[in-house]
Structures are given as structure tokens and as C-alpha cells.
């Protein structure tokens, strides 16, 4: 049965999490994700779950580590400066093969930065969520409906691959209201958590959740095994959306809120007869290489659009690998570009 409701991105994310079995949420207030925590605080006690406000983002992510070790579906959310604090814990979660969902509603940085929407944590999310050889799956929804769908997918992927999953949004997506339908969300089959620390019941050997391997050959083997899992994720879980890529001369590449601006600019360009297409990565890690690789053979140039000084553009350049020029256009510090501003960039690059 369909049930269309109007919700803010932050609240829709929280509701989607509860609906797909998230029973524990550990948070710490930070703008612009606070509505998410507040929604959890209101709903969790009424629906048999737990909302707990931690003393810091560091404590919150370690509470996530404990609850994930105990086998429940668990989530935390924050925004850029708070995610930096959580990175220690995320590295341990990766190293301990623990499933959980971490939300980053990005704001401008570095430092305390600002509180307006940004996409300047792309490098952190895809390259450096803490120290060591490792990754987390990173999902970047662009609409509130997609926030709902990717939240459910995030919990399923976390359980299937035993890995932290990050939902990388931004202040705009968290704050905007759009109609959504919870009934549409597809589900995946998830394995039992026989590795969890729930007490042995004196019926099995003790389970150990750990990221310490003092023998280098043991650690190397374990990291290599984890990378075999990553290879499977890269092969099977990359998601993207393509529009107007059949005859395209200039390919826009953008994710999240920026992809919506890019879509508007693309439509304006199409009306002027310019052959502009769009590739919108939905998974940032794994990065969707396939569509960009294919388009590298036919498109004349690429234009990567981000709310940063240029981060994802490096992944685009790695895939295109010199076969066509890859340009960049971005705004930063919490500023958004207008579709007209982007259209001007497109026209300039297409020599119009």
C-alpha cells in the first residue's frame, strides 16, 4: 500500500532507518543534522528502540562499535567536523568488520567552517575514514525519496559485507522537504550474525571482535581478504544514474544536491540544442567507473561539478585517463551554484 508523506531529508532518513530495523542510535548534536537526532529521540522510545545522546562524537561512534559488536542494527549521524572526530572509531569498525550506518550531512570546512551545504568531505569519505588500508561503502542520495531508499540499502549492505556504510548527504538534502513513499523500498537478504558478542550461553567458543593483529603476516592476510570483499563490492554494488548519454558531447558528472542543479543546467542546455548529458554517481565508493569508461570513447569532454574545490574530479580523471579533457566547476564554503551559472560554464566549454 502506498503512503505518500511530506518529510525533511533528515527526518525521512531517521524514519527509514527505524523501519528497516535500526534499534539503536547514538548521537551528538551538530548543525545541520540535528533534526535526525531529534527525530530519533522522539521516536525510538515509542518504538522499542534506543536513542542515547553521547558525551562526544568519539563516544557516540564507540557506542556504535559496542552495539554493532552485540549484533544490533545501529546508526549514528553527524556533520563534517563531527565526522572527523568519529574517524578513529570508523577505522576500528572497518578493522573489526562491524556493520553500521554513519550519516554525514556535510557542511563547509575546513575547521569549524560553516553550517551551509558543502561536498568537501568527498576525499575523507572515499579515501580516509580513519587510518589504515580500508574502505567504507559511501552512498550519496540526491532526493528525499532516494534518502529513504539508500538508508535501507545502507543497512542491508552493512550486514551483507560486514562493513560500515556512510550516507554522504549535505545540509540542503537534510533540510529540504519532499513527498516520499516508504512502501517502495526494496530489501536484500542478510546473513545471520553468528560472530556477534551476545554471550556464549556456554554453548559455543567465545567470539572476539578485534582489530589488533600483532603478527604482520596475519594482518596482511586479513587486509588482503578484506580487499577481496572490496573487489566484490566494486564489481556488484556500484550505482549510478545516466541521462542523455547516448549522443552526448559534454558529460556532466555530479552527485547529491549538485546533480539536481546539473540536471536543470543540462535541460536548459538541451533546449539550446547543446548535446549535454549527466552521470550521477549514487555510490561514491565504490566509484561507478563503468559509465564514465564507456563515455570516454565517445564524449568530447567531461565537466565535474561539486560543492568543493575539486575532489571527485580526481576519480573522474582516473577513469577517463586522458582520453578526453576533464574540467571542473565548483563553489565552496557553503555556496551553491545556480543552474544559469552552470549553463554559462557549459556554453563556455562547448565554445558557444
Amino acid at each position: 500500500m502506498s503512503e505518500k508523506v511530506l518529510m525533511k531529508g533528515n527526518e525521512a532518513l531517521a524514519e527509514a532507518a527505524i523501519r528497516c530495523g535500526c534499534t539503536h542510535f547514538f548521537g551528538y548534536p551538530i548543525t545541520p543534522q540535528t533534526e535526525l537526532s531529534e527525530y530519533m529521540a522522539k521516536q525510538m522510545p515509542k518504538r522499542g528502540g534506543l536513542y542515547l545522546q553521547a558525551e562526544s562524537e568519539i563516544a557516540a561512534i564507540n557506542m556504535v562499535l559496542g552495539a554493532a559488536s552485540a549484533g544490533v542494527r545501529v546508526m549514528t549521524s553527524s556533520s563534517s567536523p563531527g565526522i572527523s572526530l568519529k574517524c578513529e572509531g570508523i577505522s576500528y569498525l572497518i578493522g573489526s568488520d562491524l556493520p553500521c550506518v554513519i550519516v554525514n550531512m556535510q557542511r563547509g570546512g575546513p575547521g569549524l567552517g560553516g553550517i551551509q551545504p558543502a561536498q568537501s568531505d568527498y576525499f575523507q569519505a572515499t579515501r580516509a575514514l580513519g587510518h589504515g588500508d580500508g574502505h567504507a561503502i559511501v552512498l550519496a542520495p540526491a532526493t528525499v525519496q532516494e534518502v529513504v531508499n539508500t538508508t535501507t540499502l545502507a543497512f542491508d549492505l552493512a550486514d551483507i559485507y560486514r562493513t560500515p556504510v556512510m550516507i554522504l548527504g549535505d545540509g540542503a538534502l537534510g533540510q529540504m522537504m519532499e513527498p516520499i513513499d516508504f512502501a517502495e523500498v526494496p530489501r536484500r537478504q542478510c546473513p545471520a550474525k553468528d560472530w556477534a558478542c551476545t554471550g556464549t550461553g556456554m554453548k559455543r567458543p567465545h567470539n572476539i571482535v578485534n582489530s589488533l593483529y600483532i603478527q604482520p603476516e596475519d594482518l596482511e592476510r586479513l587486509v588482503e581478504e578484506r580487499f577481496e570483499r572490496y573487489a566484490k563490492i566494486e564489481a556488484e554494488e556500484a550505482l549510478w544514474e545516466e541521462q542523455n548519454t547516448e549522443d552526448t558531447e559534454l558529460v556532466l558528472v555530479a552527485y547529491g544536491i549538485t546533480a539536481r542543479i546539473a540536471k536543470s543546467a543540462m535541460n536548459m542546455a538541451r533546449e539550446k540544442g547543446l548535446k549535454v548529458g549527466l552521470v550521477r554517481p549514487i555510490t561514491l565508493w565504490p566509484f561507478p567507473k563503468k559509465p564514465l569508461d564507456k563515455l570516454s570513447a565517445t564524449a568530447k569532454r567531461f565537466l565535474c561539478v561539486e560543492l568543493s574545490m575539486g575532489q571527485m574530479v580526481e576519480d573522474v580523471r582516473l577513469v577517463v585517463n586522458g582520453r578526453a579533457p576533464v574540467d571542473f566547476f565548483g563553489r565552496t564554503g557553503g555556496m551553491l551554484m545556480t543552474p544559469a551559472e552552470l549553463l554559462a560554464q557549459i556554453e563556455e566549454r562547448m565554445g558557444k
Partner: protein
Amino acid sequence: MAIKRPHALTDVELHYCPGCTHGIVHRLVAEVIDELGIEGKTVGVAPVGCSVFAYNYFNCDMIEAPHGRAPAVATGVKRARPECAVFTYQGDGDLAAIGTAETVHVGARGENITIIFINNAIYGMTGGQMAPTTIANQVTTTTPYGRSLQVNGNPVKVCEMLATLDGTAYAERVSVDCVKNVMAAKKAIKKAFTMQLEGKGLSIVEVLSTCPTNWGLAPNAAMQWLRDNLMPVFPLGVYKDVSKEESK
């Protein structure tokens, strides 16, 4: 007389230095888990420090936490599995320096877990640096001229501090320097776990311990140094016991 290994300890050989008191405390915790019959529902959280490998030594389910974060990790476990008995095993650097915020706030929340706190006034694993509990004038590798109170301030008194928090149900400082004190330490650990099982709130047992290797003393001399130097700064005793207050 044959002394059997407690069931709650695995057969893995401990890696601790000769004369180190970790072995004694591990055994006491395991004996208490055996006597209370709770091994099957116990989850332990190991720290970063000398006792990092505690997850290999206890037979119950075990989690290895980031440095100082064991109380937060234990919070996550306890809130997910309230039916479990959850304990952390932490040293002084882990608990009273890098993890001070996490420690204070399990007390503030009255988190229903048990902390076993090993205070030997030094960082053991990294080779003898100043700890938050290093006493005045104590020589360590990072206080080679002795801890200067002017430069480094005073040692942290954990039981005294946690006793001020309403959520702390039980705080006792014990020692394992002689048989009598070992017996008293076991009694305190048992009481701490019992209070958790009764849902009273945070229970902590601070165990004054030795580090012969990094103190540069033979095991017996280290025990005497503990009596002469640590005990006056960190007096043994019960700092909080809500079960006593309730019966008043």
C-alpha cells in the same frame, strides 16, 4: 594442593612480565565470573595497553576497544544486550588520560557496567612513560627527573572522582600486594559484578598494581614500593556503596 584454572580463563598462556599483577587480577575476575555462574552471558571489553590481549584470556565473548573508549563500547553492548553482564578491563593511561571523558560519563549516566581499573602509575606497554596516576617525583621515561607537579600537575584519583557522581553505585580501591589484600580485592570485584546484576549502576574496582619491569624493581621490591609510595597517595577503601546507603 592442586589449583584449578577458573573456567572463565582460556588455556592461553599469559604474556605478562614476571611479577606483574595483571595475572592475579585476571584470575580474580575469572573466579568471580565462575562463582556467579555468568560466563555465558558476560561480554568483556579489553583496553589498549598491556592488557590489550585480555580478549584471548577470558573465555566469555570479548571486544577490543580503541584506546580509552572501553566505557563507550561497553555502553553500546549493554544498551544492545541489557541481559548481559558487561565489564571493561582498563589501565591508568587508558581510563584516566585518553579515556577520561568516557569514564566520567558512564558514571554520570549510571551505566550498569563494571570497570576493573588497573592503576600501576605508569604506561607499561609503551615502555614506562608518565601516567595520569604517576605520583609526585616518580621517575618515568618522560619524567626522567621525577614528576614535577609544577610542570605535570597532580595524579588523578579516579575512585574519589567517580564517587562524586550520582550514577556511580560502587567504587572501591583495593590492592593485590599480599594474600589478605588479594582476598579483599576478590570480594570487591564480586560485589561490583553483583551490583551490576542487581541493576544498581556503575561499579568500579581500582586495583593498585605493580610494574616491576618499568619501575626497574624486582617483584618483591615492587610490592614494597607500592605499599610505601602508592598507598599513601591512593588510600585503599570503599569510596561509594549505594547498597550501604540504602540500608541506612
